């Protein structure tokens, strides 16, 4: 096994540990979502746990950790950058533009409406 890296695979015990960890983290995900950490806090913690789980699936179940060569970086990092860029490039414009937010603000809570009014006044 050690002499041929291409054939190197995680052991059955490793698979089971990953499976058990994924189950535990699923329970943690549900429990943490019940704790109020603020709107942003809950999302950050939830996405962080999801990223840990996704990494375990990709690296162990999908053998990415054991694959040899730079192709995995060349092939997989750019689409992940695209994901981040879409979100970060569009959020300021689409999300915080008063013209987009105003019609929907009527359906939101008073606090949100106040926030929109402030944004409108500042504009």
């Amino acid at each position, binding site marked *: 096994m050690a002499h041929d890296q*291409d054939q190197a*695979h995680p052991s*059955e015990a490793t*698979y*089971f540990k990953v*499976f058990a960890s*994924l*189950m535990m983290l*699923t329970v943690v*995900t*549900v429990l943490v*979502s019940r704790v109020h950490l603020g*709107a942003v806090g*809950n*999302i950050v913690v*939830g*996405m962080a*746990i*999801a990223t840990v*789980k*996704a990494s375990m*699936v*990709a690296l162990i*179940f*999908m*053998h990415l950790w054991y*694959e*040899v*060569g730079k*192709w*995995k970086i060349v*092939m*997989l990092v*750019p*689409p*992940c950058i*695209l*994901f981040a860029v*879409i*979100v970060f490039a*569009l*959020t300021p414009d*689409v*999300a*915080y*533009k008063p013209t*987009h*937010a105003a019609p*929907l*603000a*009527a*359906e*939101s*809570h008073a606090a*949100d409406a106040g926030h929109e009014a402030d944004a409108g006044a500042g504009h």
Partner: protein
Amino acid sequence: MSHGASSGLEGDLKMPLSKAKFAMWLFLATEIMFFAGLLGTYIVLRAGNPGVFGLPYTGWDVMWWLPAINTVVLITSSFTMVKAVSAVQKGSASGVSFFLLATALLGCVFMAIKFYEYGYKFDHGIYPSTNVFYTCYFLTTGLHGLHVAGGIVVIFCLFIKAMLTGYPRNSETVEIIGLYWHFVDLVWIYLFPLVYLL
């Protein structure tokens, strides 16, 4: 002009992985972009509509545990998939058949729960047109569900083939289909908290 074997420009490329596996990873790279568009849209629209997203929804108190069960089902199916790959490497034909069937059936359980969940929402008058959250909700979970359905069909075909012929030890087919199945699981790992919990 160098014609050394290391130039890698012609003839047999010195690939660190098989062409079939390389093709699957290339497909998965396009799938990342596919879901980047969907999840990116969800995140951006959510940031822009705090009054519509992230609120308690109709039937939330009854329905939150269904997607939680679905998460457990899909993670378990990923585990049975790696067991199927291990069975191929060990040359255990019965193991391959058993774990492929288990994976396909767990996928069916996922889809059954999904249909029940959609039906519950339709019964309560919730449709994609209800608001921008439900547009995103039905779009992302629906397209993810189609990926699961496609995976079930392919894995079931592999099961039939394993029943009829078994798999040689060096077969990569199960491993390559497994990559796809794990990716679908990976997407759900993000969808579950993003759409149902937060």
